[in-house]
């Protein structure tokens, strides 16, 4: 067991880079979900929406060769599922948790079915190339951080930009103010002329679109699709929202923390001697989830529900 190999001077930058790669889909989905939940809607189906985005992006990139079209297709699939979610929770006012669980079931079945039906069983399995790394001029030459932060595929820059835009939207714009108002007191918001219905549609579509994009980012860096490829990242994103206290900047930080712990445990496992190690490798695998649980619990104990939007999870009936 060599800590040098995990967090030594030569290892720390690759560790950070791996953390970013593992975190990116989670961060994207979590930031969108922050916005959505601030409007009072829990979009719990992220895991399914991300899967749909992943397959859609994969299919589009595979057939066109363009990662850009792939990314757009990922967003598109997210929006389609988002529209279903919004119709069910905003219009039909069905319980949001139940809708979320159903969406995950639906999407995991549909993606598995569609992948087999479209691509079949081939001996040269389908792959996509993804986007080559794009080096930011000047910045990428910075020693250390330059390599980590400024040599990434374009989708990652887009993702970072998107998360910052959402933070700005929520914190600094009229739409964001409306969203926050609707999440706290939809009746009061409506009284001053904000349409809770419209704002919640925006919230659901925004988070679903971003989650679909997250699926595209995952696929683009991975190069392949397989059943259940998101492997719980959508669920983790929902957890990150809670521990981030519904703050997009917190979600960015929380998502990266999760990715970092995951990257860390993979590196510790690599150096710890495998199955003969004193500490079982299963513990490392559980580490990101243990940390998430711990932080969610601590945050809940420390802050109670003061940050949670008051109307979260509650359907709203227009007053007039």
């Amino acid at each position, binding site marked *: 067991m060599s800590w040098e190999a995990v967090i030594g001077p030569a290892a720390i930058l690759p560790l950070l880079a791996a953390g970013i790669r593992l975190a990116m889909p989670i961060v994207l989905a979590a930031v969108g979900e922050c916005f959505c939940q601030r409007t009072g809607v829990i979009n719990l189906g992220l895991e399914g929406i991300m899967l749909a985005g992943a397959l859609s992006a994969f299919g589009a990139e595979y057939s066109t060769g363009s990662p850009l079209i792939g990314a757009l297709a990922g967003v598109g699939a997210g929006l*389609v599922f988002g529209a279903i979610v919004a*119709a069910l929770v905003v219009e039909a006012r069905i319980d949001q948790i139940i809708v979320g669980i159903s969406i995950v079931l639906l999407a995991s079945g549909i993606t598995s079915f569609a992948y087999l039906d479209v691509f079949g069983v081939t001996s040269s399995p389908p792959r996509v190339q993804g986007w080559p790394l794009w080096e930011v001029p000047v910045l990428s030459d910075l020693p250390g951080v330059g390599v980590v932060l400024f040599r990434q595929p374009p989708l990652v820059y887009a993702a970072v930009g998107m998360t910052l835009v959402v933070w700005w939207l929520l914190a600094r714009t009229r739409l964001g103010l409306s969203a926050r108002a609707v999440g706290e007191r939809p009746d009061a918001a409506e009284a001053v002329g904000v349409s809770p219905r419209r704002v919640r549609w925006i919230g659901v579509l925004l988070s679903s679109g971003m989650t679909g994009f997250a699926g595209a980012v995952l696929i683009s860096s991975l190069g392949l699709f397989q059943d259940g490829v998101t*492997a719980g990242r959508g669920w983790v994103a929902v957890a990150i929202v809670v521990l981030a206290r519904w703050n997009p900047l917190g979600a960015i930080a929380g998502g990266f923390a999760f990715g970092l712990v995951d990257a860390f445990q993979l590196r510790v496992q690599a150096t710890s001697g495998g199955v003969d190690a004193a500490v079982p490798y299963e513990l490392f695998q559980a580490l990101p989830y243990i940390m998430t649980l711990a932080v969610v619990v601590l945050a809940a104990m420390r802050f109670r529900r003061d940050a949670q939007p008051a109307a979260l999870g509650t359907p709203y009936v227009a007053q007039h």
Partner: protein
Amino acid sequence: MKQQRWWMAVLAVLALAGAACGDTDDGTATPADSGDASSTTTAGGASGGDDPVSMALLLNVPQNDLGWGQAAYEAATELESEGEITLQVLSDVPEDATSTARAVEGLVDDGVELVFAHSFNYGEPLKEVIGDFPDTAFAYGGGFGDVVDNLADYDQPFHEPAFLAGILAGGVTETGVVGGTAGFNIPVCHAQLEAFRAGAEIGYGAPVRLIEQYVGSWVDAARTKEAVLAGVDQGADVWISCGVADGTIEAAQEADVAVVGYVMDQSPLAPEHVLASVVWNIDEVMRQMVEDVRAGEFPPARYYSATYAEGGTSVAINPDFAGEVSPEALELYEQYEADIRSGDFEVPFVPE
């Protein structure tokens, strides 16, 4: 065009889910509660003759998983196209006793003569039901001679080709560190990785460190990829995989290190990085079983083994990569290959 069909399908389903769902929609198809027990319309049951054996393949994964399941699926369809068998495939069958039993019972009712259950996890569940079907031949992928009545076991001697691939890896590695990935630490995987290390030491001519990465899932390709990249950062420059090859190969390609393909020749996936592939010619054991069933000799069951020497496995060296292997290692490879073939050398099997 397949793609278009897919889009139309998904969109149609989604649109309908949104629009038509809550309303009555019963004109198109009614759930057939009038379904009569005797009205099964199977193709397999029709084989009253004696030639093709009616075989069923039970998979714990989808048949397009690019690895474990697909290798068996392709072998079975090959036998089917040769007219050796009629084939039924059940994919994604959970490996608990209840799911296994219900799948098997349906198959036997359909007149299936040979059930090829392609996972070690099917072993114990099958032992609970085979007694009810003494005339049916069952086989599962245990790999350690676990034969009970009419339940056969067949081996997965990946350690042999993995050892040979390891020799090549030893001739490629510059760091003396190699890596191996698996979903979980199961005996066949452990043996494969250990044999790879043993081979690498021979090819490298010095002790070699093995970085084992157990990902905790057979389907999380993204995490597998990161697990490999983590090991690459710690010096491993040739990789092998047990069950999670796709993420491993993607990572090797990205990190520009060498990798050994799993179960089928995977060099098309990364022509510049796949050094060789551990190939499982699983049709070999299937053929043996089919012949035994046809000859009325199975059941009773026996242990089906197709070792490297018998052609059960092989190594597919990527011709584009062969030039990168040191000549000494290539020579050792040839030598050990011949010795394994002739039985003069036995690759150590280290399941745990």
